[in-house]
């Protein structure tokens, strides 16, 4: 295989090396676990040989005791190896997830990945795929263990009776190999089961998310019928997968009995002893796993490649310095690693004027849009639904890719808009802003060092102060699913306070007051205006237009 061909292996080893002590110690333990059945196999042979030759002598009891000790040692090895391995491998999986989360949340720059909005899909990818990637190394070590065991076991059997050993081992290895081919087919079942399963989860998630809508629209029955249909499909796929896996397992465990019978039939022509029969029985059974584990390295490789690809769509294509975007090490508090550093803000650049020239996003119906925002002014973008107001704002600050056009800050071309348009330069409030299941204060700070004073000022400026006063625990109130659920208007003003807390030079507000009543709306605009903020906003609301220094009207006929 070429160096390029081994890229997958290299990146998995990089991931494994994230917490190398736990990972490799655990892995070594597992490999030993696969090799170790040699010893009890030999000892059981000795017990019966001794029994047949000399009767139940003290020596036969010694062999029996040794057998017990060997088996106990093997169990102890497993007890040690498995938790150690889990620590290592789970850390590696956490690393891949962290890299994906980092790329999704990055504000531009080399570490940002293409943003995905289908969150359910992202969740499924981050849950299952790191497992499949790391499994390849498991396959390698399992194979290694089986190979060592297989060679030694065959050598023992061949030294007893070569033709019998061949008669047992060859068809057994062939069966195992054929079984490995079946394992490829099993993947088809597995993929089908997984697709059916994510169809159920996806639909169920949407249903739960929209459960109140489902309730008030009386769609309960029809949604359940659809769910039942998806469930039935999944049951079929899952049963297929289970049965197929079990066919393989059962061939692997019982086929050894079939070929043991054949090997013994061949060996019957010579002078067999009870001990030799016991050794045949013990060693032949373990051999069958070898070709299958060998095959799994290859099928596992394909699976790992697909899974790595599924995470990669969330990641940047390359990192500066040639680091691997999927597995590059970063501080993560797992197993004693350092805590991730608090966010750092870039230097402020006081705004004199923001200019947008010839901005075109064809897919959103924006063609050749130009605008200028002067310091201290309020610029309102208005237009009918679908005219691209939101898209224009998102394109300016780099949340949306543009086909052509430039954005200048004080006349200087902004290259990476997403990286540039962050506090303290600009802050953006979406039309339906997201808050997180944290305390209100944490929601507003988002990890930044903002003093209580500044926070309260921002809250007042956002006309959110009376709402905060009414909250049971004030700023410490838990927001979101487990705490107080804020109304649409409250969420908008909380998000405005979150933006204002960082004292941005430019405020970009997408229809900020859409869910506010007239009085609160007027109050908010008067406070923002009095504070002298530079504002770029999308709105059709009279209160916003009333405060506007400049109005840009988008028409829906652009497209």
């Amino acid at each position, binding site marked *: 295989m070429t160096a390029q061909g081994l890229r997958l292996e290299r990146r998995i080893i990089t991931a494994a090396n994230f917490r190398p002590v736990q990972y490799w110690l655990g892995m070594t333990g597992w490999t030993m676990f696969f090799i170790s059945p040699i010893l009890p196999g030999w000892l059981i042979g000795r*017990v*019966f040989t001794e*029994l*047949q030759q000399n009767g139940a002598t003290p020596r036969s009891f010694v062999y029996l005791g040794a057998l*017990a000790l060997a088996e106990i040692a093997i*169990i102890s090895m*497993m*007890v040690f190896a498995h938790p150690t391995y889990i*620590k290592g491998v789970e850390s590696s999986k*956490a690393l891949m997830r*962290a890299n994906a*989360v980092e790329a999704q*949340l990055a504000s531009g720059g080399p570490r940002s990945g293409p943003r995905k909005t289908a*969150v359910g899909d*992202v969740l499924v990818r981050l849950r299952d795929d790191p497992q499949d990637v790391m499994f390849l190394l498991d396959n390698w070590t399992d194979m290694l263990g089986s190979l060592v065991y297989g060679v030694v076991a065959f050598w023992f059997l061949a030294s007893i009776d070569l033709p019998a050993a061949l008669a047992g081992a060859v068809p057994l290895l062939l069966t195992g190999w054929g079984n490995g081919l079946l394992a490829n087919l099993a993947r088809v079942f597995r993929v089908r089961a997984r697709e059916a399963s994510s169809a159920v989860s*996806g*639909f*169920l998630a*949407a249903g*739960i998310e*929209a459960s*109140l*809508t*489902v*309730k008030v*629209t*009386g769609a309960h029955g*029809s949604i*359940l019928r*659809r*769910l039942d249909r998806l*469930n039935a499909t*999944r049951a079929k796929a899952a049963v297929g997968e*289970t049965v197929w896996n079990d066919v393989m397992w059962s061939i692997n*465990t019982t086929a050894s009995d*079939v070929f043991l*019978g054949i090997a*013994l039939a061949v060996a*019957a022509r010579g002078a067999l*002893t*009870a001990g030799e029969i016991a050794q045949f*029985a013990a060693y032949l059974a373990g051999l069958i796993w070898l070709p299958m584990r060998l095959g799994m390295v290859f099928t596992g490789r394909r699976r790992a490649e697909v899974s790595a690809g599924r995470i990669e769509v969330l990641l940047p294509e390359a990192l500066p310095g040639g680091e691997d975007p999927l597995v590059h090490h970063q501080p993560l508090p797992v197993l004693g*690693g350092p*805590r*991730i550093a608090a966010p750092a803000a870039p230097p402020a650049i006081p705004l004199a004027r923001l200019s947008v020239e010839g901005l075109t996003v064809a897919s959103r119906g924006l063609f050749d849009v130009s605008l200028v925002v002067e310091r201290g002014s309020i610029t309102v973008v208005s237009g009918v639904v679908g005219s691209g107001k939101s898209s224009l704002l*998102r394109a300016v600050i780099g949340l949306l890719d543009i086909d052509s056009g430039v954005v200048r800050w004080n006349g200087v071309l902004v290259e990476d808009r997403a990286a540039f348009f962050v506090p303290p330069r600009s802050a*953006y409030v979406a039309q*339906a*802003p997201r808050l*997180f299941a944290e305390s209100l204060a944490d929601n507003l700070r*988002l990890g930044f060092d903002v003093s209580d004073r500044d926070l309260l000022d921002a809250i007042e400026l956002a006309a959110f102060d009376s709402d905060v006063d009414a909250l*049971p*625990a004030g700023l410490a109130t838990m927001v979101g699913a487990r705490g107080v659920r804020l*109304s649409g208007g409250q969420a908008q003003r909380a*998000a405005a306070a979150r*933006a204002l807390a960082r004292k941005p030079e430019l405020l970009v507000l997408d229809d900020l007051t859409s869910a506010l009543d007239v009085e609160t709306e007027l109050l908010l605009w008067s406070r923002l205006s009095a504070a002298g903020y530079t504002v770029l906003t999308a709105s*059709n609301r*009279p209160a916003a*237009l*009333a405060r506007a220094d400049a109005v840009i009207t988008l028409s829906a006929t652009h497209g």
Partner: protein
Amino acid sequence: MLVGLVAPHRRAFAGLGLLMALSAALPIAASFAMARFVDRVIAQAPVSELVTVALTFAGLGLASSLLIVVVTWRSALLAWRLTNGLRHELASLVLNADLSFHRDRTPGELLTRCDGDVTALTSFLSAVVARIAGISMLAIASLVVMALVEPWLAVPMAVGFAALAWRGWSTRDTTTAAVTRERTIDSEMNSIIEQYVSGAEDVASLGAGAHGLRRFGDAARRLVDAMSLRTRAEMKVNSGLRAVILLTQIAVLGAGLLLFRRGGLGIGDVVLGYRLVDVVRSPVEHLTWRLMEAQGVSGAAQRVTELLEEGRRVDLGERPLPAGPLALEFSNAGLVYDDASQGEAALQHLNLRVEAGRVVGLLGRSGSGKTSAIRLALRLVNTTSGSVTLGGVDVGRVLEADFRRRVSAIPQDVQLFPGTVRENVTMFDSDLFDSDLFDRESQHTDERIVDALVSAGLGPWLADLPSGLDTMLSPDNRAEQDDRAGLSAGEAQLLAIARALLHHPDVVVLDEATARVDPVTQAAISVAVARLLDGRTGVIIAHRLETLSICDDIAVLADGELVEFGARVDLLTDPGSRYAQLLAMGAEAEELA
């Protein structure tokens, strides 16, 4: 919980039991063949006899192999049938549950309950329960056979199997706490990823990615710790069972050696004893790897049971609504949310009557109780004092299906489903659109759907769609892929109006339905809303004062109480009314524009 699920499948269970008994008999027969082979080898029997015995052993192995597959197939099928019933029941109650239920739980958490936990139960049933049943049969059969051949060897075997059963039983819950903890942290971590990835634009535009990563990192650390602890607990169970069955085998072999020494026992009998434990040992070892599913399951079962019990408390009502237009009346209605709001009432003593066929506009600052009032009207929460009646029937007692059929809501945030435009308008109601079965019907209903969309002002939007009603909607309102249609917030609300139009309700509740719609679309909707409300009882929350021109009556709320009520025309002409004052403020704002 399981009893109710199992009952309808009694015959399938009996059949499965029979198959298992049969599959237990084969490995025991194979053990006899092996013991005989050893005896005949020692007796230096003719090669042809040895070959026959060896091949018999091989044949029995093959048959047993096939039977195991059949057993697996039947038990997996049964497990999925059983748990799909449970999935249905759980989803049903989550979708029926009211606001207070959903306030306390994240969607991710509910998804874990309805899907993840039930899947854990499924694999427990198919992988563990079925295997334990099979192992028990094998163990009993081995023991009986051993006792018939050599009672003294059956003694250590019986003790060993009893110890195995005892050990299995006593460690059944050893890892439960650790598994529960792990799952809790796992869903917490998933909820963090879900929240931050869906809020990625907010976070990125505020340069706060590191904060999200940090929250993820903390959860990931706790998850690794929890998994390590869980694995350790698991190993305790796993190694215990392995050690017991191993020592049983050693003990039987030891007893065999002693009896051999005393005379009267052949090597074949010793081999038989060893093999009879072996037929139990190999499935036990296989099972130990599946025990994680067994251990997690009591936690999963407990959570599912809790959810079912709580769900049963959701009252779906029993009284039908009278025919014809319905009046909505709040009588002394009070509402205190039972969460962190420290008993502060969202509504107190609200008295308001919406006459049948009249439309009332609710006005008031945010926090004045408008949203709470319509939540009561929609039965998303229940009054803590007083009552709300619809057509003279307490809304809390109205039959749920009747209620939802007669009352339509245009919610503040319109939720879309991953599905086609048709599915989103009909909310997957296959009676309305199952085109496979009723092709002509479907054309007819397609017309109705198109009519509804056109009436709602989405005609031009529909005409632009690449595949018409079959166009897939992207649920997050953003058209990321070319073959999917996106909807702006305003358009999504138009779609909700189309949903309502399709169902011919008697009562319509609009929550800020026009808030995010621009003036042009606004005008178009006004027509559609007027049509929707024509002859129907309506409650509207609107911030655009001109939307209120559709209303017959105006109700102004402040601090959870009604402070003004009257016919809109009367209030308009009374300059002292709050409505007239609000209108003046709005007009002022518009004049400045």
